[in-house]
């Protein structure tokens, strides 16, 4: 029997896919809320909470990924290389999003409350105008991430419909 993706890695992958789309949309939406909106306080609170939980999941995912074996990859050498680079770039983008988001909210030393469940402490102001710089980084990386993730999805569909290989089926554990 062929090697399959471990269930935990697939689970985190699909949770991440939903989260990235949801975080992108909620992030763009919440910064334009009016002061008297019911969501003015709740939306950023949930956005930050979800982001930090996704950070924990991503760190776990990287550990699982390093210690487990993966199913066969498809494509020629160049495609495999490009695929590897693309996936590393996605991981780097995710980690940069967590970092920049954290740095916005903790610039004045305030901790981040995760769903009123626990608080992640701040490191304080590490650079001058931290909330502004981290905010710009967070905004532009968000766009780069959503575009890269979309290309990632299109590539998966290309594998499925054009190359007719098992790449997408592996991710859905249909094989």
């Amino acid at each position, binding site marked *: 029997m062929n090697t399959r993706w471990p269930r935990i890695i697939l689970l985190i992958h699909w949770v991440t896919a939903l989260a990235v789309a949801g975080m992108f949309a909620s992030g763009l939406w919440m910064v334009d809320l*009016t*002061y*008297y909106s019911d969501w003015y306080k709740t939306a*950023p609170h949930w956005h930050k909470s979800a982001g930090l939980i996704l950070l924990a999941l991503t760190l776990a995912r990287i550990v699982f990924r390093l210690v487990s074996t993966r199913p066969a990859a498809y494509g020629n050498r160049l495609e495999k290389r490009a695929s590897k680079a693309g996936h590393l770039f996605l991981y780097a983008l995710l980690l940069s999003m967590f970092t920049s988001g954290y740095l*916005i*909210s*903790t*610039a*004045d030393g*305030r901790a981040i409350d995760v769903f009123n469940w626990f608080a992640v402490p701040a490191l304080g*102001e590490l650079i001058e*105008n*931290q*909330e*502004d710089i981290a*905010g710009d980084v967070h905004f532009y990386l968000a766009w780069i991430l959503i575009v890269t993730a979309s290309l990632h999805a299109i590539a998966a569909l290309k594998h499925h419909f054009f190359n007719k290989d098992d790449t997408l089926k592996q991710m859905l554990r249909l094989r």
Partner: protein
Amino acid sequence: MKKLTLALAAALSMSSVQAADYVIDSKGAHASINFKIQHLGYSWLTGRFNDFEGTFSYDDEKPSDANIMVNITTDSIDSNHAERDKHLKGDDFLDVDIYPSAKFVSTKIVEKGDGMMDVMGDFTFHGVTKPITINAKKIGEGKDPWGGYRAGFMGTTVIALKDFGIDYDLGPASQTVELELHVEGVKQ
């Protein structure tokens, strides 16, 4: 006749003595620009601008000849909350990328006695220049312990955010902002 001429000349030169020029001691932080605005009508939210500079000239004998100029770096706004400061610096409020500085230049000073003055001038804020009046009070002046000479004032004024093109809705109790200035100048 000669004596009279001399006396006249002396009197003229006396009156033409320039009011002393002072530089606001922002370096030593003996000056601050604070603001406060109502939060929902339930309390006051206070904050300040940390980075500004200015000069004034003032002569105790002729307060109405005084003038003052202050330049504020808008991205130095500090309300003791980074997320709020980020919002305040963004395009809902100060839009500091486009309007990096605010400026007050006095045009006329009316003495009201007891060290009180109306300082009228043009305030440029958020790209809009409008005349405002600062209710000012002289706090004191004299020698400092390190060989210098200082004079200090405080002033307050109220501006409507809408007048300066800021229309983010903070609620009916939060249409205006009170500005409070404390300036101590070191004589040059």
